[in-house]
């Protein structure tokens, strides 16, 4: 059985797209082969900056012939119908078979389809794959119509077996398949022919191309760490960068260079960010001093001077970059040490949103809100206010202008340089957190207050100008802000009624609508923790639902209670009581909330239920008072047995109207008692 080798050779494919593209190529081709019955033993895909390669091992040379049976018209049907059938099936009348179906004689045709040659199928499938390749972004070039990620130059496509290799012939938009490829752009630019996958990889290796990305990244990492180790250094791990760098080269050459002494005083994060973002360098730390003092760059070529020219060039570029960074850092420090005045002033010239004023206006709102929240988080009000005032000052700094990803972190450095407290400096960095469902939530009280104020201001303001998220559109990241507030409250166990604070944040914000938004986000958040949405509905229907912490405690307790046998059955009993009561109330046009009287109770179970409800009421009231939802839920669950016994034993619609009404009033007590814990009517199932 032959092996198939495909290589699509193009101009440089973006590093970030290669791995995905190799997988897509494998899937498109192998799916297409299998669909027509061409099975194979194994397949593997590879990628370099200039090629996508697929090797399929032991492919069937031909698919099996198939026979399709087709039912035709009845014997004696009009000639026209029979002729039509023969034409469609591509057989003659003599080939037809007559079978009895039910009481009729019917013609049947057997349509024989010969097996298909692998090359024919491959040509078709590959052509379709080239035309429909799912690149994230593709382009046309020259005068052609073909779309590829960058211009596609050649397609190698061969089938090889013991007898040798043959090209699978086809043409896509002027590109004719062949058995040739090229090596490294500079080391081995000439075309060469290959006869199998092994031949291909070994010739590529000789032509200075490492085909396997994993092999490239392993080699880079190995060499980088060895070179670093030898000099008493360690490379700072960066898996994302390693993967990217490995896909920028076909022939990796690791070079370690020195960062000029002048720049070693820069914050480590600045060095690292500048080197990574601009130059794709790894940072290398001295094991002695702990400082970043070296860098590692990966070239795509081996040179006669062992990379000396390349390294010198890279070093020069880095020095120019870091000279900029140092210039920014020193300028920024001067402003910071003088109290950051110009930065906070500059923010008044920056529009936050045309309906919500400048960044300075926004900061003023956050300051006021943070001060109010200091009570909640237990932070010092003046310190919190000061922290909120400078938390975003670094947005005006030169360093953050150059490296937006350093916002917050630079704020921390600059607040410290300005002589502010550690708590204020920390808040400058931490108030942006949490940014997602999993990253760390700040716990320092000042940071928490500023983080809450920042997010609540954003939410209330955008609600006030009616810029709420819709569908997949959330340009101001309000869902993330709401989740952030939720996590800050829950994970710091804060008591923060949101209604008041929203109104305080912006008078025009519809607090109850925004609260409903919080409740929606809370459902998403708690769903991941195994709490059902209907349980949250049952709890948000209660008073105090703007205290998310209280709300979640109630929901967790209810969720736990419903997982017990008593809890689950209690819901059934409750629903039964509620249904009967609601129907009776609707029919009679009254509300049975007069209070049942035990003196009209006849059955023992009925009397027992009175007692059980009295007990539960007392227990629930005291549990709720101390915020012990678990105790309240368990007291409620205790009602399960008496309610079940009552329903088993007693007919609600008694003949005596007095007794009937008393029983309905008793059902009403069940509703009231349970209703003190959660709105169980919202529970589904």
């Amino acid at each position, binding site marked *: 059985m032959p092996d198939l080798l495909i290589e699509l050779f193009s101009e440089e494919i973006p*590093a970030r797209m290669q791995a995905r593209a190799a997988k897509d190529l494998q899937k498109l081709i192998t799916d297409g082969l299998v669909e027509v019955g061409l099975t194979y033993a194994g397949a593997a895909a590879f990628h370099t900056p200039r090629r996508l390669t697929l090797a399929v091992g032991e492919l069937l040379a031909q698919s099996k012939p198939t026979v399709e049976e087709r039912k035709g018209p009845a014997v004696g049907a009009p000639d026209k119908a029979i002729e039509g059938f023969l034409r469609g099936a591509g057989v003659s009348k003599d080939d037809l078979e007559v079978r009895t179906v039910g009481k009729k004689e019917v013609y049947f045709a057997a349509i024989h389809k010969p097996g298909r040659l692998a090359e024919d199928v491959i040509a078709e499938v590959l052509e379709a794959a080239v035309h429909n390749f799912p690149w994230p972004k593709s382009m046309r070039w020259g005068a052609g119509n073909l779309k590829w990620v960058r211009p596609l130059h050649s397609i190698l496509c061969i089938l090889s077996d013991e007898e040798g290799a043959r090209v699978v012939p086809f043409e896509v938009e002027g590109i004719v398949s062949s058995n040739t490829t090229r090596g490294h752009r500079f080391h081995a630019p000439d075309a060469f022919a290959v006869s199998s996958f092994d031949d291909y990889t070994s010739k590529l290796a000789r032509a200075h191309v490492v085909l396997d990305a994993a092999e490239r990244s392993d080699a880079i990492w190995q060499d980088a760490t060895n070179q670093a180790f030898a000099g008493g250094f360690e490379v700072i791990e960066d898996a994302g960068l390693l993967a990217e760098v490995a896909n920028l080269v076909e022939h990796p050459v690791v070079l370690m260079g020195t960062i000029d002494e002048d720049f070693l005083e820069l914050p480590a994060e600045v060095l690292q960010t500048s080197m990574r973002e601009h130059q794709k360098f790894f940072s290398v730390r001295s094991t002695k001093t702990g400082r970043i003092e070296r860098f590692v760059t990966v070239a795509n070529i081996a040179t*006669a001077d062992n990379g000396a020219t390349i390294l010198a060039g890279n070093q*020069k570029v880095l020095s120019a970059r870091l000279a900029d960074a140092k210039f920014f850092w020193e300028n920024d420090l001067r402003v910071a040490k003088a109290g950051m005045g110009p930065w906070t002033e500059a923010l008044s010239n920056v529009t936050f949103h045309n309906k919500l004023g400048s960044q300075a206006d926004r900061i003023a709102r956050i300051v006021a809100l943070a001060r109010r929240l200091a009570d909640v988080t237990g932070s010092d009000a003046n310190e919190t206010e000061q922290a909120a005032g400078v938390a975003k000052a670094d947005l005006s700094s030169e360093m953050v202008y150059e490296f937006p990803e350093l916002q917050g972190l630079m704020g921390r450095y600059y607040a410290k340089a300005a002589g502010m407290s550690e708590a204020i400096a920390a808040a400058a960095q931490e108030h942006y957190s949490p940014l997602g469902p999993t990253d760390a939530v700040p716990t320092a009280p000042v940071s928490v207050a500023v983080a809450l104020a920042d997010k609540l201001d954003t939410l209330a303001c955008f609600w006030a100008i009616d810029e709420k998220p819709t569908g997949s559109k959330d340009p101001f990241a309000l869902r993330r802000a709401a989740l952030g507030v939720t996590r800050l409250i829950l994970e710091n166990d804060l008591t923060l009624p949101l209604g008041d604070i929203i109104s305080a944040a912006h008078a025009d914000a519809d607090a109850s609508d925004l609260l409903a938004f919080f409740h929606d986000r809370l459902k998403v958040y708690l769903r991941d923790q195994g709490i059902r949405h209907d349980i949250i509905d049952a709890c948000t229907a209660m008073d105090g639902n703007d205290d998310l912490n209280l709300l979640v405690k109630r929901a967790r307790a209810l969720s736990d209670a419903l997982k017990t046998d008593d809890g689950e059955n209690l819901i059934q009993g409750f629903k039964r009581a509620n249904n009967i009561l609601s129907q009776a109330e609707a029919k009679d046009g009254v509300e049975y909330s007069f209070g049942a009287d035990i003196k009209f109770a006849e059955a023992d179970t009925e009397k027992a239920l009175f007692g059980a409800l009295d007990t539960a009421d007392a227990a629930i009231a005291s549990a709720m008072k101390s915020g012990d939802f678990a105790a309240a839920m368990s007291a409620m669950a205790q009602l399960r047995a008496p309610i079940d016994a009552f329903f088993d034993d007693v007919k609600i619609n008694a003949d005596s109207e007095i007794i009937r009404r008393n029983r309905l009033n008793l059902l009403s007590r069940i509703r009231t008692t349970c209703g003190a814990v959660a709105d169980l009517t919202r529970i589904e199932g």
Partner: protein
Amino acid sequence: MTTPALDTPRSFQEIILRLQNYWASKGCAILQPYDMEVGAGTFHPATTLRALGDTPWAAAYVQPSRRPTDGRYGENPNRLQHYYQYQVLIKPSPSDLQDLYLGSLKAIGIDMSLHDIRFVEDDWESPTLGAWGLGWEVWCDGMEVSQFTYFQQVGGHDCKPVSGELTYGLERLAMYILGIDHVMDMPFNDPSAPIPLSYRDIFKQTEEEYARWNFDVANTETLLQHFKDAEAECEAILAQPHEDPKTGKRIVMAHPAYDQCIKASHVFNLLDARGVISVTERQAYIGRVRALAKQCADAFVQTEAGGYKAAEA
């Protein structure tokens, strides 16, 4: 200290001359700079407009470019408010464009066996021109030396066929080749000429003058009026009927209209440098320039150079 190879150019102008010769030898028409203030070589109508339509094209030129906000009074080693770009545009993009480009690096003294040349993903987009393309920034030893783009759309029109565009930042590239750390130290003509002139001799004073004017003196009310005037003139030109009543000929005035678009774009850059455009206004201004560029592109494809065929009328 390594001795520079014989082949190494000795001055800024020699690098420019070599690029001119190289691209001339590859069949490009060597055009002269466009006679208006532009932010980049792409604005030259030889690129923006000629990338449209199906008429083949091959041109190369130096374009003085102005970015008022980048002014640093000539003190920053790498930043200038006035600098030069070298621009090549070939339509349809030839299949060996990458090799042609590498040949140009060789022509200016870059030894491919000693340097690390890389094509790193960089999608190009000009919001003001309503244009985008895919390609790379080309790195030489970690430094970006060129922008290499296959134009996909200009002025909202699909580019068919596709043009290949090469842009070289001349000062940066030359500094690298000549081993200069501060742009002002760069020899402009041959250092052994009877009167050797450095970049400083020619541009230090003008950088100072323009930086002062750009940042602090340019009259913003006048500029705002210029913007409105250019916008109005552009639209007025394009509103004219295609047939000229005087000559009776079909004359679509795409280029005069596009001049006004270029003017509006530069005025916007000046206003930006004066700091009078807020973040939100910025988008609106860019949108207005883009609208002009789009209308000019619409007009250009109605011209013969833009692929208009009389028979279609």
